[in-house]
């Protein structure tokens, strides 16, 4: 315990660690605030003239005031009423006019904007069963909305048939998982997908910063020669290696928890904590498999990010125990952090998801795996990609830590 305490003191006194942790803390606030600054809306007066151009928090508050009428359960009746409002408002000008920008702005704010988030998933739910192409809101009959939730199941069936054609058990597996999703969905409009993208991006940056801070753990001491002294001491082998590892994991885990908590706190306070009750299906895909709301999704992303961080740090510590040169360690560790982005783009799914940093990045990130239908197959068994990513990371943590300790103990001073 005494060595552990002193090692913690050493890590926290290191200028490199302090700088990187301060950057992480600063980034947590900045990256939580950025999506808030993306929010904007024009406010119109009774005569249809623009009275204000709102940005940031003001825009969020105004948008929420327009949409709050639809907050709560997403019932077929509510959807029907909203679609009727939308269609009657848009039919005169045509749906394209909204995207072209020649739709009357005041009418848009009054009629279309308030129902947009409620109706946002309908084109997907009623998409073409053969091509998967989204249907226009104008082409959906309000009568069909009585069976909206049956339609979402049908849509999932169609998608799974397209994506997992050769794997009927996988299709069933997805449908089975989807039965856990609670209906009717909940909607508390206000939270943006940008904010989720920034959570993903922030976790990615946080992992890179912590990785950079962890790289010198062993290699720096090989390089400076201080290792020659330490490994000659009574507890200078396996115990020191364990202490160094646990101190690094403690510092970076706490740093991660503090930074991600601060990030989510700022984000949720800005967009409104009530938005967290929204079903994940109402912000992402209507057929997303996880039976969770946005608040729970944030927790899953944070927990998954922490597991990916620990796996990546464990791998980095192993590298650090293996290499004598800190620069090689940092370069290799950063390449390993970025590798899943490239392997995913190259279609190497298995490799992507079993890498320690498989759950962080861009399209390969846990968020997009949770909203997707990527199943990996081993013989007759199909496993959903988020499970593979997390299971691989959980297994890799003790494996790489064991290898780091073993490598450190076997290191030869030459």
């Amino acid at each position, binding site marked *: 315990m005494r060595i552990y305490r002193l090692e913690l003191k050493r890590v926290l006194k290191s200028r490199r660690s302090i700088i990187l942790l301060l950057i992480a803390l600063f980034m947590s606030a900045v990256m939580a605030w950025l999506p808030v600054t993306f929010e904007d809306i024009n406010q119109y007066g009774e005569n249809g003239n623009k009275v204000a151009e709102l940005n940031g928090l003001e825009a969020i508050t105004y948008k929420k005031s327009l949409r709050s009428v639809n907050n709560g359960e997403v019932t077929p009746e509510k959807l029907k009423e909203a679609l009727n409002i939308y269609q009657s408002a848009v039919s005169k000008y045509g749906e394209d006019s909204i995207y072209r920008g020649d739709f009357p702005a005041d009418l848009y704010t009054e009629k279309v904007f308030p129902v947009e988030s409620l109706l946002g998933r309908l084109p997907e739910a009623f998409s073409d069963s053969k091509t998967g192409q989204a249907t226009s809101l104008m082409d959906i009959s309000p009568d069909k909305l009585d069976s909206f939730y049956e339609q979402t199941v049908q849509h999932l069936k169609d998608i799974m048939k397209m994506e997992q054609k050769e794997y009927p058990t996988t299709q069933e597996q997805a449908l089975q998982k989807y039965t856990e999703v609670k209906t009717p969905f909940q909607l508390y409009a206000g939270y943006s997908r940008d904010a989720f993208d920034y959570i993903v991006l922030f976790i990615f940056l946080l992992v890179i910063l912590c990785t950079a801070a962890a790289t010198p753990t062993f290699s720096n001491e090989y390089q400076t020669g201080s290792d020659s002294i330490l490994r000659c001491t009574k507890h200078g082998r396996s115990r020191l290696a364990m202490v160094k590892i646990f101190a690094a994991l403690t510092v970076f885990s706490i740093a991660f928890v503090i930074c991600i908590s601060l990030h989510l706190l700022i984000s949720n306070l800005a967009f409104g904590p009530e938005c967290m009750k929204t079903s994940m299906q109402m912000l992402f895909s209507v057929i997303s498999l996880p039976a969770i709301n946005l608040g729970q999704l944030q927790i899953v992303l944070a927990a998954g990010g922490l597991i990916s961080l620990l796996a990546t740090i464990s791998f980095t510590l192993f590298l650090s125990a293996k290499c004598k040169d800190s620069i090689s360690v940092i370069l290799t560790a950063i390449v390993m952090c970025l590798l899943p982005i490239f392997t995913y783009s190259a279609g190497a799914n298995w490799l992507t998801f079993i890498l320690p940093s498989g759950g962080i990045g861009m399209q390969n990130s846990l968020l997009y795996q949770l909203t997707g239908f990527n199943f990996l197959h081993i013989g007759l068994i199909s496993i959903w990609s988020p499970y593979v990513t997390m299971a691989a990371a959980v297994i890799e943590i003790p494996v790489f830590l064991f290898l780091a300790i073993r490598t450190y103990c076997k290191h*030869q001073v030459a």
Partner: protein
Amino acid sequence: MKLTTTNLRKQFKDKTAVDDVCLNLTPGVWGLLGANGAGKTTLMRMIADILNPTSGKILYDGKDIHAMGEAYRNLFGFLPQDFGFFQDFTVKDYLEYVAALKDVPARETRKKIDSLLHTLTLTDVKNKKIIKLSGGMKRRVGIAQAMLNDPKILIMDEPTAGLDPGERVRFRNFISEFSHDRIVLISTHIVSDIEYIATQNAIMKAGKILDVGTTDELVKQVTGKVWTCVVSTEKMPMYEMQFRIINQRSEGNNQVSIRYLADEAKTSDSVMAPPRLEDLYLWLFPQEEIREEGK
């Protein structure tokens, strides 16, 4: 108490750094003399159990040191030739850290550190960051860490490098007192640092131990080979070319007193001088050879 190396050998690719070394280290100060590249550091690293021998064994009281593990390291103190510190730690922080690794009880640590800092005249800088210390101070911090656990076996590789003459004298006295009932092995280029405190010396060349003995025993090898004479300063360049001059001192009036090594007197006025360990060192390791080995 005995530390024995048996047919110890270390091979690095095509170079044999330590070749069949057999040593029997008993309590007292041992000087390990040898030119650069002689294999002293490799030998010390193997004794410190931070480098595995290619073959041979190192035994402490008959037990393999590698198998002893923690028990051996608990008796051990090591000052490497080149070493670094945690740059952001103060002297006190660093010594506390090493003391914890050496399992020095917490209640004794403060006392032990204060005592070592006092002995090594580091008390004034104990709260200074190590990065801000001079080279000599850093080396003294290195010496302090090696002695934190009152080691039974103390291995120091070039401990006096970077120390000023006063510090070297204090170091010699300190080691002399400390070595009672302990094995202290010191490698150095500065022969005078161990000449008067070493109870035994081992001379190493090209990975092999050439000879082991007390200073008096060893210097007998150069008895009758050390000469002194006084020459004029104009002729010095010529003498420097022809003689193996160990030392020279100005005597005034364009005269220089020289001390040189030769099988027989090179000038008619040369007088045989009593040999010292440094003479033996330079006899065994001529400067040209040292330069070659250093390459």
